[in-house]
Structure formats: C-alpha cells, structure tokens
C-alpha cells in the first residue's frame, strides 16, 4: 500500500463522527470612517496612507518624496514617465536592483491595514517584496471593513498568486526590537484615491 493510501485509510478509521458546520463565522464590523481606520492601522504596522484626489497629486508627492531616486518601476500607465526600469523582463532576478515599485492594489481592509495585491496587477510575484520601497495605489471606494468582507470580495484562485500586504516587511527577532525592512520593502506608502 502506498503512503497515500495508508494515511487516508488510517484517517478514515480514526477521524471522529461527522460533525456538521453550522456555526456563525462571519461578523460585521462598523467603523465611522473607513479611510481613517485604515490609515490608523496602517501607521500602527509601519506604513503610511495618504488620501489623494487624482493621479497628478500622487505623481507630485512621489516626485518630491523620491527625488533623485532611480530604478523605479510601475505597473500603472499614468506613472510611466516616472519609471526608468522596465518590468518587461523574463527573469524576476533582474528586479534585484529595483529601488521603487509603484503598483496597484485591488482593495484594502480597514481592520488590519492590509491590501490585496495579486497577479492580476503585478507581472512578477516577487515585485512587492524585492523592491527597496513600495508604493501601492488603491481606490477609496475599495476599502472593506474586515477580513470576512475581504474574502467575499476576492476569489483567491482567480490568479495563481495573491497576497495581503500589511505594512513594510519587519522583524522583531532580535530582543523583540522592531526593525522595519527585514527582507522585503523597507517602506510602504499607500495612496488612497478618492
């Protein structure tokens, strides 16, 4: 008998009697202002949310914030003139030297400051992690309250890969001191487009 059959038959013998699932597992969360909550939590996890009216505002802010920075890539057509780094590459290892990635997020979650980023919008899975700094643009109308609403909003297998990103990469593995920029991006700015 193969291990597969051995394991599955032992499971069948040993698993308890069928217990049906009828517990409530989705809950409502109410916030006065979704953007404020999202912004508060995002700053708690080390990121920064900025409310903007249009792409020009974002552009101006990026230009002042990252002036002199080169190796910038973007997936958003409106910012193509900011980019000097093409994402049209075959090997994701070529992203190694990237300083800034400006990408689109599908939607954001107020309760935990997370943004869903999937292959729908990023041509390389490693893009949001390998870049030194990350900028995500998300629409203000696309902020949901909590994770129950988030999973109603996304079909996780629509693409081969998707991730909730909540703040910049971090670690507290050395004496519980928080350090931002463990392996992934050292900074995360989220522009919320109203």
């Amino acid at each position, binding site marked *: 008998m193969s*291990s597969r059959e*051995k*394991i*599955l038959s*032992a*499971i069948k*013998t*040993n*698993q*308890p009697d*069928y*217990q049906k*699932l009828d*517990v*409530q*597992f*989705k*809950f409502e969360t109410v916030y006065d202002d979704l953007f404020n909550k999202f912004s508060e939590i995002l700053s*708690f*996890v080390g990121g920064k949310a900025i409310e903007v009216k249009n792409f020009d505002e974002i552009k101006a802010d990026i230009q002042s914030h990252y002036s002199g920075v080169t190796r910038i890539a973007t997936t958003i057509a409106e910012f193509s003139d900011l980019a000097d780094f093409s994402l049209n590459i075959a090997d*994701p*290892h070529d992203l190694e030297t990237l300083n800034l990635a400006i990408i689109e997020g599908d939607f954001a979650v107020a*309760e*935990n*400051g*997370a943004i869903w980023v999937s292959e729908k919008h990023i041509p390389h*899975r*490693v893009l949001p*992690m*390998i870049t030194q700094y990350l900028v995500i643009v998300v629409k203000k109308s696309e902020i949901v309250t*909590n*994770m*129950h609403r988030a*999973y*109603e909003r996304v*079909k*996780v*297998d629509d*693409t*081969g*890969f*998707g*991730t*909730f*990103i*909540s*703040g910049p*990469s*971090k*670690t507290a*593995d*050395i*004496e*519980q*001191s928080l*350090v931002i*920029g*463990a*392996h*992934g991006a050292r900074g995360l700015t989220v522009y919320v487009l109203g």
Partner: protein
Amino acid sequence: MNNIKIDHSAAATEFNKDEARVNWHDETLWFVRSKRDKAVFQIPEWEQLREAGSQIKNHVLSNLHDYLTEFEKKATENGITVHWAADGKEHNEIIYSIIKNEGVNRMVKSKSMLTEECHLNEFLKEKGVEVIDSDLGERIVQMREEPPSHIVLPAIHLKKSDVGDTFHEHLGTEKGATDPQYLTEAARQHLRDTFLTRKVALTGVNFAIAETGGFVVCTNEGNADMGAHLADVHIAAMGFEKIIPKAEHLGVFLRLLARSATGQPITTFSSHFHKPRAGQKMHIVIVDNGRTTQLGRADFRNSLKCIRCAACFNTCPVYRRSGGHSYHTAIAGPIGSILAPNLDMAKNADLPFASTLCGSCSNVCPVKIDIHDQLYKWRQVLVKDGHVSSVKSIGIKSMASVLNSPKFYRTAGKLGRFLMKTAPFMVNNNMNVWYNQREMPEVPKESFRDWYLRKRN
C-alpha cells in the same frame, strides 16, 4: 522506566541559574502576551471568532479524509505535484529527491515547524545539501547550531549581545555590535544573496484550502515570498491537519492568528499560492508522522486543531521561566507537551508535567483547545503506562487524589492558594523541581474549578 537524558525539570533548573536572564525571558514573553490582549480587546466578537475557529477545526477533523482528497484533486489540477509522507523519514526523502532531481545541493527555507519535527536540516546535511533558514530568528539559531526555542520567536532566548557575537563570527559584523537595526541589516544583505542564488525554496503552510487546492503562508519578513518567487522549484511542507474547507474560512483564521501570536492585526504578508508561476515547479508534501494516531486518541485529537500561534507559550508561567529548550522537542510549550508524547511516550513523559495546570493556555487558545485538560489526561496515561519516574509519580498521585475527590479539591485548592500567597516556600520544595530558583508564579484570583463552574453556568 524513565529514559529521558535531561528531563524538563532538570533543564529548567539549569536555565534558572541565571536569574536576571530568566526574569528578562519571563517579562519579554509576558510583554508579547500583553500585546495579544490589547489586540484582542479591540475585537468585540473575539469570543465568537474563537468559537468559529474551534468549530471549523472540529468539523475539519471529522471530515479530514474527504477534505484532503478534495485538496489533492484541486491542487493537482492547479499544476501542483502532491506527495504523501507517512513519517518524517519519508518527508525528508521526498524533499531530498526533489532537490537531487534539480541537480543542486543548496536550498533556502522559510519557517516550517514540520521540518524541525522531521529533522530535515540534519538529514539533508548528511546528504551533502546545504539548507539556509531565512527567517531572521531561525537563521540566528541555525548559525549557533541550536534549535528554535519558540515556534513564532525562534531566538527569544537570546540577548542582542548573543546575536552580535554570532553575527560577528558568521557575518563579519563589528565586534561588540548590538544594535538590532544594524544586525538585521547585515542579515538582510546576507540572506538577499541567498534568495537570489537558490534554485529550490521550501516553505511551510499555515492553511491549505480544500475548495481551491491552494495554500496560505504567513510571514512578517517576506522571506517565504522572497524564497519561493525567485526559485525554480517551490516545495511546501504541511501536516495534514492544516486543511480548511473553504477560502472564506480564512477570514476567521487570519483574524485570529497574528493577534494571538504577537498582537498584530495580521501578518505583514499573507500569501496565497494556487499555481506555480510560468516555468516554475511547485510541490506539496502532506505529512502524517503520528498525526493519524493522535486523531484516533479521542482525548488528544483536539491538539490537531492547533494553528501554531504560540499564545499558549507566551502565557505559560512554566514556559516563560524554563525556556523553550528545556522541552527537548521541536514544538515546546503547552501544546508541544501534548503533541510530543504522541510521538514518543517514553522520551517525552516529563513534558505533560511541565505545567501548573493553571489553564491560562486554554483561555488564550484561538481555536479553544482544552490544553490543560489534555496535559492532565496525559499524566494519567503516562503514569498508568509506567513512564514516570518516582518524584513526579508522587506529585501525580497527590494531584490525582486531589482531583478525584471534589470536596478535597475544594479544600486543598483553597489551602494551596493560601499557602502560595502566604508561605510559598512550603510549596517550593524539592518535590517540584522547576520551582527551585524562584518563588511561585502569581496566584490566579479564580481557581480552575471556580472558572469551570462559572463557564458551565
């Protein structure tokens, strides 16, 4: 009889020799526990969420066979190769054969307690394969040739000066440097190079979704993603209990996990893998290694509901004051003390005794595992089967008589709490080795029995 080389209480005695360090360890973990409380208090429906998490997991255990076969089918359709491993040895061999097939002898690995349980690193080292752990805490302990002492915070037993010394030796950082920012930066550079050059990456699995044939990996550092997305081959290793029915159930578990673990609202990255990227190969290894046996033990099967948040570690007065290494098993703490005897009763007979049975673990567990009850039940099994040495045997006998007589328990319990408050030295005697270097922990205001009665009413 008892064939443990260094048992928990002896190791704990050793750990307790450095009083200042033990106090620091204790306080640091209590700080993490306090962060958990703060996060939890912000969710009014927290208790309902725990109940949901618990019920979903109960349901999964009762339907594991079908969910696993559904998962296998969907994952295969997604282009993932699914392997089954009966034990740790087979798990290691499968992984080795995948690495060998690629013609490489190096691999990068993100946190996976399962690979610790199966001693994968040692196995691969013997085969000439170099494994680099990419989680910062795991990398630190790996350099020091120590096992992780905590499932979420692998290097929690170390001070920054220890890390500074280790990095000076292995990464060439300045001698005496202790700044966490500087040390982390050095590790970042070192591991970035690793991510960029490894063709095979291994990750753990936090949740596997039957409905969609995908899996979720949670990290704060982004190390699982860096490894997996840059490698030609991604291997994900999972114990079969990681399965959940549907993606929508992730709403419950992702709300529970990080808040329980570190007090964060969610981990920085919660990555959902469903298909290999173009040109990549993806493997999932589904492991038994004693889990089917545990599933068959009605009293202990609930331990398979664990989502490895480590809240029970952080809250445990014994763990905080004895350190993870004293548990001599891959998963320490209260939950590890339930899981380990299942794998080897004789070797791990001491672990269910490494508890005051105060019940704090069960109170914080996000999936409502009856941890302290199971610890107590293990004691009975182990004593009955003759796995317990005399000192502990006496302890258990008096404990057993106390618990078997409700009236005596009420009196003895009150007396015990009175003694602990007024004359701790009377409880703090040689019969109870891990108390040796210190006073008893803070006395709970409410006894387990009072708590139990209140919860029942």
